[in-house]
């Protein structure tokens, strides 16, 4: 097949490209320019999108003897990922930009462009596996559970999966580093990228403040409705957050207080004790299936953040929404996050969390 290997300049995507070539595909390396004013050099180990990174990817392509191009998707990335990220926070939700990037950039804008230019598929260095099941292609967790990235791929549809390759899913990260060194890639020891690529300093609140401006508002007790403090923008808070509330005392009974809700439109942050954080009903929209949709109520595992734990649950669709009934309460479930459903190692599908509840309140 003719395959675009998306090459960030990191170790994983380099080995992925090499493996696609070994497998006999016709491979072209493509680095996505996602920043409209990329820095020339990496300033820390965290970012991944400098011109130096593009150069690293190019040198791997040289080594492999494959053509290499840089495709400018900065405008699209800004609109579909960065602006969306800020808008979601402004609305009181907690988005996952990596998931959004996979959904709208890597397996949409990039894949569509690649197909239009004559390619059959896109390969990336994600840690996840594609398995040919009897009902078609299935997305599974990587064997290296510590690196597993199936969560951020849980938004991909069967059509997108049909044109995706994840050549690293059967290998652990340490083995990938060894392989990179054996292949002579100069980047074999390059540090992993962390956090959000467009916030290389890790200061999400600072990024949001630059995008959205200061928006002073009130911290409100979730139970009594009393104003207990002030904040400079509700977008800086996420459900389950304890630090940075600026409260000089805990609750009346002395127990710690948390963000239990963010009301974006009214710019209010709801504060409460830990018992208000536990939920066992999640309702999500924007439902995606990575294979055949389950019929009726399905016994699944539910995961709500990239490296979070999987909780047993029952899931069913009602009125176009996904209802997930957790077997035990989970804390820190924020609207905007994705709930990804698993059946064993297989990714069943996902939804964007719209609201949560406890079963008692539903009864």
């Amino acid at each position, binding site marked *: 097949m003719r395959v675009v290997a998306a090459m960030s300049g990191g170790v994983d995507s380099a080995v992925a490209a090499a493996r696609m070539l070994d497998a006999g595909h016709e491979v072209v390396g493509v680095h996505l320019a996602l920043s409209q004013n990329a820095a020339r050099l990496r300033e820390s180990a965290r970012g991944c999108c400098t011109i130096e990174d593009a150069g690293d990817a190019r040198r791997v392509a040289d080594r492999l*003897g494959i053509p*290499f*191009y*840089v495709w400018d998707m900065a405008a699209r990335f800004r609109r579909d990922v960065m602006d969306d990220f800020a808008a979601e926070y402004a609305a009181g939700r907690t988005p996952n930009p990596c998931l959004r990037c996979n959904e709208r950039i890597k397996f949409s804008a990039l894949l*569509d462009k690649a197909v*239009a*230019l004559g390619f059959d598929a896109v390969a990336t260095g994600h840690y996840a596996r594609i398995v040919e099941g009897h009902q078609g292609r299935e997305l599974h967790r990587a064997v290296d559970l510590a690196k597993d990235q199936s969560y951020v791929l849980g938004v991909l549809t069967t059509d997108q999966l049909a044109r995706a390759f994840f050549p690293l899913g059967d290998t652990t990260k340490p083995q990938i580093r060894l392989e990179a060194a054996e292949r002579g890639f100069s980047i074999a020891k390059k540090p992993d990228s962390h956090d959000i690529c467009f916030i290389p300093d890790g200061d999400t609140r600072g990024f949001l403040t630059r995008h959205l401006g200061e928006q002073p508002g009130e911290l409100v007790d979730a139970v009594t409705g009393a104003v207990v403090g002030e904040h400079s923008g509700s977008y800086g808070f996420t459900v389950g957050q304890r630090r940075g509330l600026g409260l000089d005392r805990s609750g009346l009974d002395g127990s710690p207080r948390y963000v239990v809700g963010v009301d974006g439109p009214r710019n209010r942050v709801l504060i409460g004790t830990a018992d208000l954080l536990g939920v066992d009903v999640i309702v999500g929209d924007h439902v995606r299936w990575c294979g055949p949709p389950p019929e009726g109520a399905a016994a699944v595992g539910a995961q709500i953040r990239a490296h979070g734990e999987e909780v047993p649950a029952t899931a069913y669709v009602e009125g176009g929404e996904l209802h997930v009934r957790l077997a035990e309460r989970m804390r820190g479930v924020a609207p905007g996050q994705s709930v990804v459903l698993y059946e064993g190692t297989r990714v069943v599908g996902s939804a964007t969390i719209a609201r949560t509840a406890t079963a008692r309140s539903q009864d």
Partner: protein
Amino acid sequence: MPHHTLRLPGPLPEPKGGVVAGPYHGWMPETSVRTYLDHAATTPMVPAAVEAWLAATAQVGNPSSLHASGRRARALLEESRERVAAVLDAHPSEVVFTSGGTEADNLAITGTYAARTAAHPRARAVVTSSIEHHAVLEAVEALEPRGAVVRLVAPDGHGEVRVDSVASAIEEIEAGGAAPALVTVMWANNEIGTIQPVQQVAALARERGIPVHSDAVQAVGPCGLSFRQSGLDLLSLSGHKLGGPMGIGALLVSRDARIDPIVHGGGHERGLRSGTVPVALVAALAAALEDVGARRAHETERLIALRDRLIGGALDLDLGIVVGGAWTAGSARDRLPGNAHLIVPGCEPDSLMFLLDAAGIEASTGSACQAGVPGRSHVLDALGVDSTQPVGVVRLTLGHSSTAADVDRAVDALATCVPQARTAYTVSA
């Protein structure tokens, strides 16, 4: 003493610490038949230049040394300087060798500004066109912290910087109580190939005593210009754009030009450009210039015919392709003989470049790249091309190795690549 020459090199050595690129047997560029139509980026060295370089580089000798080897190197350097001067109708003492066109532009602009403002503190305006190469535009911008006031003159819709526009700019500066330190207008544009009225601009500047420079990097090969008749004080050229090697260029500096050096340390090249002169590169540049000069009349006619065949073929595809800049069939008066600049609405430049590359056609957008991404062209902006719409741009430039078969392959490739690039834009926008 017989000249000792190197044999032509065998396979290139493997990169240090690495394996050379593995064999690649795909559909993709690395192994397919290539049609090179990017001569404005760089053009193959002519055999005479390769031979001159090989002969000279095999010999030891620093032209500044006083012993026999040094004298031999110096003799070759000065002989080459005389040959360069002869081809360009300049005096040998007016030829200052540099590392290339970019350095020549920087020396001309920075060095003249320094000397001029020292002598005339009010003369702080720099007049240039908005379609200059970045070597000029950024050298000029870099003077702003030193008090320079930059005045960009826009071209007309055909890509010509009109003399009356330059005159108005100068008059406005003088009316404001300031004075121009320098006027610099390129001889031929590197993207759209339009030829500028440099001699008229030079006459205008000279009658007002303003130093005048022209970046002639794209023009020296095809245009057959005379430095003496140009009226210029300063003219930049580059070796590898005309069949010579990379790493060598020259600034022609008239004998009465007032200019300060920007690189110090040894006083080479009339005290304007310190650093050991690469004699072999200079010898190759001289050989290339002579070779190009001897073939120019015939070559110009040949390239005009090829260019017109290419532009005509592209327009006949009925794909909405437009020619960027002035084009008169059968003429090299308003446009370089080897430049076909095609504007292709409705697609992205990188898609078009990719598809052409895959089809074996080596072209360019003509604008500067940042980390492999073609930047938005300031030349297209100056021409008034709508920047809110996607615009594919293909600069196909012909040179001494180009053939009619090259041109026909390019037109055939455009016929399939343009619709496909438009589809790619539609799906990924």
